[in-house]
Protein backbone atom coordinates (compact mmCIF):
# COMPACT_ATOMS: atom_id res chain seq x y z
CA UNK A 1 0.00 0.00 0.00
CA UNK A 2 1.64 3.24 -1.14
CA UNK A 3 -0.55 5.68 0.80
CA UNK A 4 0.49 5.85 4.47
CA UNK A 5 -2.25 6.05 7.09
CA UNK A 6 -3.24 9.45 8.48
CA UNK A 7 -2.19 8.30 11.95
CA UNK A 8 1.29 7.41 10.72
CA UNK A 9 1.68 10.80 9.05
CA UNK A 10 0.50 12.58 12.23
CA UNK A 11 2.99 10.66 14.35
CA UNK A 12 5.75 11.45 11.85
CA UNK A 13 4.81 15.13 11.99
CA UNK A 14 5.20 14.95 15.78
CA UNK A 15 8.75 13.65 15.24
CA UNK A 16 8.07 10.05 16.27
CA UNK A 17 11.15 8.04 15.35
CA UNK A 18 9.37 4.81 14.42
CA UNK A 19 6.80 6.66 12.31
CA UNK A 20 9.48 8.61 10.44
CA UNK A 21 11.39 5.42 9.73
CA UNK A 22 8.23 3.66 8.53
CA UNK A 23 7.35 6.60 6.31
CA UNK A 24 10.80 6.68 4.72
CA UNK A 25 10.81 2.93 4.26
CA UNK A 26 7.38 2.84 2.64
CA UNK A 27 8.07 5.70 0.24
CA UNK A 28 11.74 5.33 -0.69
CA UNK A 29 11.13 3.07 -3.71
CA UNK A 30 8.46 5.36 -5.14
CA UNK A 31 10.52 8.51 -4.62
CA UNK A 32 13.61 6.89 -6.14
CA UNK A 33 11.57 5.62 -9.10
CA UNK A 34 10.27 9.13 -9.83
CA UNK A 35 13.81 10.49 -9.59
CA UNK A 36 15.08 7.76 -11.92
CA UNK A 37 12.37 8.46 -14.47
CA UNK A 38 13.30 12.14 -14.66
CA UNK A 39 17.05 12.06 -14.13
CA UNK A 40 17.63 8.74 -15.94
CA UNK A 41 20.91 8.29 -14.10
CA UNK A 42 21.31 6.32 -10.83
CA UNK A 43 23.78 8.75 -9.20
CA UNK A 44 21.65 11.81 -9.96
CA UNK A 45 18.51 9.95 -8.90
CA UNK A 46 20.14 9.07 -5.57
CA UNK A 47 21.07 12.74 -5.00
CA UNK A 48 17.54 13.87 -5.80
CA UNK A 49 16.02 11.19 -3.55
CA UNK A 50 18.15 12.33 -0.65
CA UNK A 51 17.30 15.99 -1.30
CA UNK A 52 13.64 15.08 -1.48
CA UNK A 53 13.67 13.32 1.89
CA UNK A 54 15.60 16.16 3.54
CA UNK A 55 12.98 18.57 2.16
CA UNK A 56 10.24 16.21 3.33
CA UNK A 57 11.61 16.13 6.88
CA UNK A 58 11.84 19.91 6.97
CA UNK A 59 8.42 20.62 5.51
CA UNK A 60 6.45 17.70 6.92
CA UNK A 61 4.93 20.08 9.47
CA UNK A 62 3.38 22.16 6.69
CA UNK A 63 1.44 19.20 5.22
CA UNK A 64 -2.25 19.81 5.98
CA UNK A 65 -3.89 16.59 4.71
CA UNK A 66 -5.97 18.52 2.15
CA UNK A 67 -4.51 16.32 -0.58
CA UNK A 68 -3.30 12.73 -0.45
CA UNK A 69 0.09 12.50 1.24
CA UNK A 70 1.60 10.59 -1.67
CA UNK A 71 0.39 13.18 -4.20
CA UNK A 72 1.93 15.94 -2.10
CA UNK A 73 5.22 14.03 -1.73
CA UNK A 74 5.50 12.99 -5.40
CA UNK A 75 4.85 16.55 -6.51
CA UNK A 76 7.64 17.69 -4.18
CA UNK A 77 10.03 15.11 -5.68
CA UNK A 78 9.05 16.04 -9.24
CA UNK A 79 9.77 19.72 -8.59
CA UNK A 80 13.10 18.91 -6.97
CA UNK A 81 14.09 16.80 -9.99
CA UNK A 82 13.04 19.51 -12.46
CA UNK A 83 15.17 22.01 -10.48
CA UNK A 84 18.02 19.48 -10.43
CA UNK A 85 17.86 19.08 -14.21
CA UNK A 86 17.89 22.86 -14.63
CA UNK A 87 20.93 23.18 -12.35
CA UNK A 88 22.71 20.48 -14.33
CA UNK A 89 22.09 22.34 -17.58
CA UNK A 90 19.56 19.78 -18.84
CA UNK A 91 16.28 21.67 -18.46
CA UNK A 92 13.19 20.03 -19.88
CA UNK A 93 10.99 23.10 -19.52
CA UNK A 94 7.58 22.20 -18.23
CA UNK A 95 6.22 18.68 -18.45
CA UNK A 96 3.50 20.01 -20.68
CA UNK A 97 5.92 21.44 -23.25
CA UNK A 98 7.54 18.11 -23.89
CA UNK A 99 4.14 16.71 -24.77
CA UNK A 100 3.34 19.46 -27.24
CA UNK A 101 6.77 18.99 -28.84
CA UNK A 102 5.86 15.38 -29.32
CA UNK A 103 2.47 16.23 -30.72
CA UNK A 104 3.72 16.98 -34.20
CA UNK A 105 5.79 13.86 -34.31
CA UNK A 106 2.93 11.70 -33.11
CA UNK A 107 0.48 12.76 -35.76
CA UNK A 108 -1.14 9.39 -35.85
CA UNK A 109 -3.03 8.25 -32.82
CA UNK A 110 -1.73 5.43 -30.72
CA UNK A 111 -4.44 3.07 -31.82
CA UNK A 112 -3.81 3.74 -35.49
CA UNK A 113 -0.12 2.97 -35.12
CA UNK A 114 -0.64 -0.19 -33.20
CA UNK A 115 -3.17 -1.55 -35.63
CA UNK A 116 -1.35 -0.28 -38.75
CA UNK A 117 1.77 -2.26 -37.95
CA UNK A 118 -0.32 -5.42 -38.02
CA UNK A 119 1.47 -6.40 -34.85
CA UNK A 120 -1.58 -8.00 -33.30
CA UNK A 121 -2.99 -9.48 -36.47
CA UNK A 122 -1.88 -13.08 -35.85
CA UNK A 123 -3.62 -14.24 -32.67
CA UNK A 124 -2.25 -17.74 -33.04
CA UNK A 125 1.28 -16.36 -32.73
CA UNK A 126 2.40 -15.66 -29.17
CA UNK A 127 3.40 -12.09 -28.49
CA UNK A 128 7.03 -11.88 -27.53
CA UNK A 129 8.67 -8.89 -25.94
CA UNK A 130 12.36 -8.28 -25.72
CA UNK A 131 12.59 -8.04 -21.96
CA UNK A 132 16.30 -7.92 -21.13
CA UNK A 133 17.09 -5.14 -18.67
CA UNK A 134 19.36 -3.29 -21.10
CA UNK A 135 16.79 -3.33 -23.90
CA UNK A 136 14.04 -2.07 -21.63
CA UNK A 137 16.36 0.60 -20.22
CA UNK A 138 17.31 1.69 -23.71
CA UNK A 139 13.68 1.86 -24.80
CA UNK A 140 12.72 3.84 -21.70
CA UNK A 141 15.65 6.20 -22.26
CA UNK A 142 14.30 7.11 -25.68
CA UNK A 143 10.99 8.34 -24.23
CA UNK A 144 10.53 12.03 -23.41
CA UNK A 145 10.84 12.63 -19.62
CA UNK A 146 7.16 13.56 -19.28
CA UNK A 147 6.03 10.27 -20.81
CA UNK A 148 8.49 8.35 -18.66
CA UNK A 149 7.28 10.08 -15.49
CA UNK A 150 3.61 9.58 -16.38
CA UNK A 151 4.22 5.88 -17.05
CA UNK A 152 6.20 5.48 -13.81
CA UNK A 153 3.40 7.04 -11.76
CA UNK A 154 0.86 4.96 -13.68
CA UNK A 155 2.50 1.78 -12.41
CA UNK A 156 2.52 2.90 -8.76
CA UNK A 157 -0.01 1.21 -6.50
CA UNK A 158 -3.26 3.09 -5.87
CA UNK A 159 -2.43 6.15 -7.97
CA UNK A 160 -5.33 7.21 -10.19
CA UNK A 161 -5.09 9.30 -13.35
CA UNK A 162 -6.41 12.30 -11.36
CA UNK A 163 -3.57 11.89 -8.83
CA UNK A 164 -0.99 11.64 -11.63
CA UNK A 165 -2.41 14.82 -13.18
CA UNK A 166 -2.06 16.57 -9.81
CA UNK A 167 1.50 15.37 -9.32
CA UNK A 168 2.54 16.47 -12.80
CA UNK A 169 0.44 19.64 -12.75
CA UNK A 170 -1.14 18.73 -16.09
CA UNK A 171 -4.69 18.31 -17.37
CA UNK A 172 -6.11 14.81 -17.11
CA UNK A 173 -6.28 14.29 -20.87
CA UNK A 174 -2.64 15.28 -21.31
CA UNK A 175 -1.64 12.68 -18.72
CA UNK A 176 -3.69 9.99 -20.47
CA UNK A 177 -2.12 11.00 -23.75
CA UNK A 178 1.40 10.73 -22.24
CA UNK A 179 0.64 7.25 -20.94
CA UNK A 180 -0.94 6.11 -24.19
CA UNK A 181 1.92 7.39 -26.33
CA UNK A 182 4.53 6.05 -23.96
CA UNK A 183 3.02 2.56 -23.91
CA UNK A 184 2.57 2.58 -27.65
CA UNK A 185 6.17 3.56 -28.31
CA UNK A 186 7.48 0.98 -25.86
CA UNK A 187 5.29 -1.73 -27.35
CA UNK A 188 6.68 -0.91 -30.78
CA UNK A 189 10.27 -0.75 -29.56
CA UNK A 190 10.21 -3.87 -27.41
CA UNK A 191 8.20 -6.22 -29.57
CA UNK A 192 10.17 -8.95 -31.25
CA UNK A 193 11.35 -7.83 -34.73
CA UNK A 194 10.61 -11.29 -36.11
CA UNK A 195 6.93 -10.66 -35.53
CA UNK A 196 6.98 -7.66 -37.80
CA UNK A 197 7.94 -9.70 -40.82
CA UNK A 198 4.96 -10.78 -42.89
CA UNK A 199 4.08 -14.41 -42.67
CA UNK A 200 5.34 -16.18 -45.80
CA UNK A 201 2.40 -18.55 -45.72
Amino acid at each position, binding site marked *: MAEPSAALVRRAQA*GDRAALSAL*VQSQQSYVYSIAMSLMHNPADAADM*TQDAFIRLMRSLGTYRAETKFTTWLYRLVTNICLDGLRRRGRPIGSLDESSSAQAGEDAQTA*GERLTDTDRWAQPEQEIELRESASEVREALGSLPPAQRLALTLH*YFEDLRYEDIAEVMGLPLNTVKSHIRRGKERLALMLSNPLEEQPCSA
Partner: protein
Amino acid sequence: MQCIDATERLLVEKLGSDPELERHVAGCARCAHALSGLDRLDVVLTSSLVVAPPLDLQRQLAQLALEYARPSTEPWWTRATNALGQLNLASWLAQRPQMVAAQGLASIMLALASWQIFGWLTTFQPMVGDVALAVQLVVASPASIYLGGLQFDLQSMALWSVVGIAGWLISENGWLGRRLSATRLRLP
Protein backbone atom coordinates in the same frame (compact mmCIF):
# COMPACT_ATOMS: atom_id res chain seq x y z
CA MET B 1 -16.77 -0.32 -31.57
CA GLN B 2 -13.91 -0.52 -34.09
CA CYS B 3 -10.71 -2.41 -33.32
CA ILE B 4 -8.73 0.80 -33.65
CA ASP B 5 -10.80 2.45 -30.87
CA ALA B 6 -10.63 -0.64 -28.71
CA THR B 7 -6.82 -0.86 -28.98
CA GLU B 8 -6.46 2.81 -28.17
CA ARG B 9 -8.66 2.46 -25.09
CA LEU B 10 -6.88 -0.68 -23.95
CA LEU B 11 -3.71 1.41 -23.66
CA VAL B 12 -5.20 3.52 -20.85
CA GLU B 13 -8.16 1.61 -19.45
CA LYS B 14 -8.59 -1.55 -17.44
CA LEU B 15 -10.75 -4.11 -19.17
CA GLY B 16 -13.32 -4.34 -16.35
CA SER B 17 -13.98 -0.58 -16.36
CA ASP B 18 -15.95 -0.52 -19.63
CA PRO B 19 -18.58 -3.19 -20.50
CA GLU B 20 -18.62 -2.20 -24.18
CA LEU B 21 -14.86 -2.62 -24.45
CA GLU B 22 -15.09 -5.92 -22.59
CA ARG B 23 -17.75 -7.22 -25.02
CA HIS B 24 -15.65 -6.19 -27.99
CA VAL B 25 -12.49 -7.87 -26.71
CA ALA B 26 -14.42 -11.04 -25.86
CA GLY B 27 -15.60 -11.31 -29.45
CA CYS B 28 -12.47 -10.14 -31.26
CA ALA B 29 -9.42 -12.39 -31.47
CA ARG B 30 -7.25 -9.53 -32.71
CA CYS B 31 -8.04 -7.25 -29.77
CA ALA B 32 -7.77 -10.13 -27.27
CA HIS B 33 -4.31 -10.76 -28.71
CA ALA B 34 -3.43 -7.08 -28.37
CA LEU B 35 -4.65 -7.14 -24.76
CA SER B 36 -2.43 -10.09 -23.87
CA GLY B 37 0.55 -8.22 -25.39
CA LEU B 38 -0.26 -5.11 -23.40
CA ASP B 39 -0.63 -7.14 -20.20
CA ARG B 40 2.83 -8.56 -20.78
CA LEU B 41 4.13 -5.04 -21.38
CA ASP B 42 2.58 -3.93 -18.07
CA VAL B 43 4.46 -6.66 -16.23
CA VAL B 44 7.77 -5.72 -17.87
CA LEU B 45 7.29 -2.01 -17.22
CA THR B 46 6.18 -2.41 -13.61
CA SER B 47 9.39 -4.24 -12.77
CA SER B 48 11.51 -1.76 -14.76
CA LEU B 49 9.95 1.52 -13.66
CA VAL B 50 9.25 0.88 -9.97
CA VAL B 51 12.69 0.17 -8.53
CA ALA B 52 14.14 -0.04 -5.04
CA PRO B 53 16.96 2.41 -4.22
CA PRO B 54 20.48 1.00 -3.76
CA LEU B 55 21.30 -0.30 -0.27
CA ASP B 56 23.72 2.55 0.47
CA LEU B 57 21.01 5.07 -0.20
CA GLN B 58 18.51 3.09 1.89
CA ARG B 59 20.95 3.21 4.81
CA GLN B 60 21.45 6.97 4.40
CA LEU B 61 17.71 7.55 4.32
CA ALA B 62 17.18 5.46 7.46
CA GLN B 63 19.87 7.55 9.19
CA LEU B 64 18.16 10.73 7.99
CA ALA B 65 14.87 9.63 9.57
CA LEU B 66 16.65 9.08 12.90
CA GLU B 67 18.34 12.49 12.73
CA TYR B 68 15.05 14.28 12.27
CA ALA B 69 13.23 12.33 14.98
CA ARG B 70 12.48 14.30 18.13
CA PRO B 71 12.83 12.78 21.60
CA SER B 72 9.53 11.49 22.84
CA THR B 73 7.63 13.84 25.18
CA GLU B 74 5.78 10.96 26.84
CA PRO B 75 7.12 10.02 30.29
CA TRP B 76 8.99 6.72 30.53
CA TRP B 77 6.27 5.01 32.56
CA THR B 78 3.66 5.76 29.85
CA ARG B 79 5.94 4.34 27.15
CA ALA B 80 6.71 1.29 29.34
CA THR B 81 2.98 0.70 29.96
CA ASN B 82 2.25 1.03 26.24
CA ALA B 83 5.04 -1.37 25.38
CA LEU B 84 3.79 -3.89 27.95
CA GLY B 85 0.28 -3.50 26.56
CA GLN B 86 1.53 -4.41 23.10
CA LEU B 87 3.44 -7.42 24.40
CA ASN B 88 1.51 -10.66 24.24
CA LEU B 89 3.49 -12.50 26.88
CA ALA B 90 1.46 -15.74 26.89
CA SER B 91 1.88 -16.44 23.16
CA TRP B 92 5.51 -15.33 23.31
CA LEU B 93 6.25 -17.82 26.08
CA ALA B 94 4.21 -20.59 24.44
CA GLN B 95 6.60 -20.43 21.50
CA ARG B 96 9.63 -20.73 23.78
CA PRO B 97 9.19 -23.74 26.13
CA GLN B 98 12.92 -23.97 26.83
CA MET B 99 12.86 -20.36 28.03
CA VAL B 100 9.96 -21.18 30.38
CA ALA B 101 11.85 -24.22 31.73
CA ALA B 102 15.03 -22.19 32.31
CA GLN B 103 13.09 -19.40 34.03
CA GLY B 104 11.30 -21.95 36.23
CA LEU B 105 14.58 -23.59 37.22
CA ALA B 106 16.13 -20.21 38.02
CA SER B 107 13.12 -19.33 40.21
CA ILE B 108 13.46 -22.60 42.16
CA MET B 109 17.21 -21.98 42.70
CA LEU B 110 16.52 -18.45 43.89
CA ALA B 111 13.83 -19.65 46.27
CA LEU B 112 16.19 -22.30 47.71
CA ALA B 113 19.01 -19.80 48.15
CA SER B 114 16.66 -17.32 49.81
CA TRP B 115 15.35 -20.02 52.15
CA GLN B 116 18.93 -20.98 53.10
CA ILE B 117 19.94 -17.40 53.84
CA PHE B 118 16.74 -16.00 55.29
CA GLY B 119 15.12 -19.24 56.47
CA TRP B 120 15.41 -18.09 60.09
CA LEU B 121 12.75 -15.44 59.39
CA THR B 122 10.07 -18.10 59.60
CA THR B 123 10.82 -18.54 63.31
CA PHE B 124 9.75 -14.94 64.00
CA GLN B 125 6.32 -13.45 63.82
CA PRO B 126 6.42 -10.15 61.89
CA MET B 127 5.70 -7.17 64.12
CA VAL B 128 4.30 -4.27 62.16
CA GLY B 129 5.68 -0.86 63.11
CA ASP B 130 8.49 -2.06 65.41
CA VAL B 131 11.43 -0.48 63.55
CA ALA B 132 13.96 -1.25 66.26
CA LEU B 133 13.13 -4.94 66.17
CA ALA B 134 13.30 -4.91 62.34
CA VAL B 135 16.80 -3.39 62.46
CA GLN B 136 17.86 -6.00 65.05
CA LEU B 137 16.56 -8.78 62.81
CA VAL B 138 18.48 -7.46 59.80
CA VAL B 139 21.67 -7.03 61.81
CA ALA B 140 21.33 -10.55 63.25
CA SER B 141 20.64 -12.14 59.84
CA PRO B 142 23.18 -14.64 58.45
CA ALA B 143 23.60 -12.41 55.35
CA SER B 144 24.70 -9.42 57.48
CA ILE B 145 27.01 -11.62 59.52
CA TYR B 146 28.56 -13.00 56.34
CA LEU B 147 29.04 -9.53 54.84
CA GLY B 148 30.41 -8.18 58.12
CA GLY B 149 33.06 -10.91 58.18
CA LEU B 150 34.45 -10.02 54.77
CA GLN B 151 37.88 -8.46 54.68
CA PHE B 152 37.78 -5.36 52.50
CA ASP B 153 41.15 -4.80 50.94
CA LEU B 154 41.51 -1.41 49.28
CA GLN B 155 44.29 -2.60 47.03
CA SER B 156 42.29 -5.49 45.61
CA MET B 157 39.24 -3.23 45.23
CA ALA B 158 41.33 -0.79 43.22
CA LEU B 159 42.81 -3.61 41.15
CA TRP B 160 39.42 -5.11 40.30
CA SER B 161 38.07 -1.64 39.51
CA VAL B 162 40.88 -1.13 37.01
CA VAL B 163 40.11 -4.55 35.48
CA GLY B 164 36.43 -3.59 35.22
CA ILE B 165 37.14 -0.20 33.65
CA ALA B 166 39.56 -1.79 31.15
CA GLY B 167 36.93 -4.37 30.29
CA TRP B 168 34.37 -1.65 29.64
CA LEU B 169 36.82 0.32 27.50
CA ILE B 170 37.43 -2.60 25.14
CA SER B 171 33.80 -3.73 25.15
CA GLU B 172 31.51 -3.06 22.20
CA ASN B 173 30.21 0.18 23.70
CA GLY B 174 33.47 1.31 25.22
CA TRP B 175 35.69 4.08 23.88
CA LEU B 176 38.41 1.71 22.62
CA GLY B 177 36.00 -1.03 21.50
CA ARG B 178 34.09 1.37 19.23
CA ARG B 179 37.31 2.42 17.54
CA LEU B 180 38.51 -1.16 17.20
CA SER B 181 35.27 -2.30 15.60
CA ALA B 182 35.40 0.66 13.19
CA THR B 183 38.90 -0.34 12.07
CA ARG B 184 39.00 -2.99 9.40
CA LEU B 185 41.79 -5.40 10.06
CA ARG B 186 43.52 -6.62 6.92
CA LEU B 187 45.40 -9.85 6.74
CA PRO B 188 48.89 -9.56 5.24
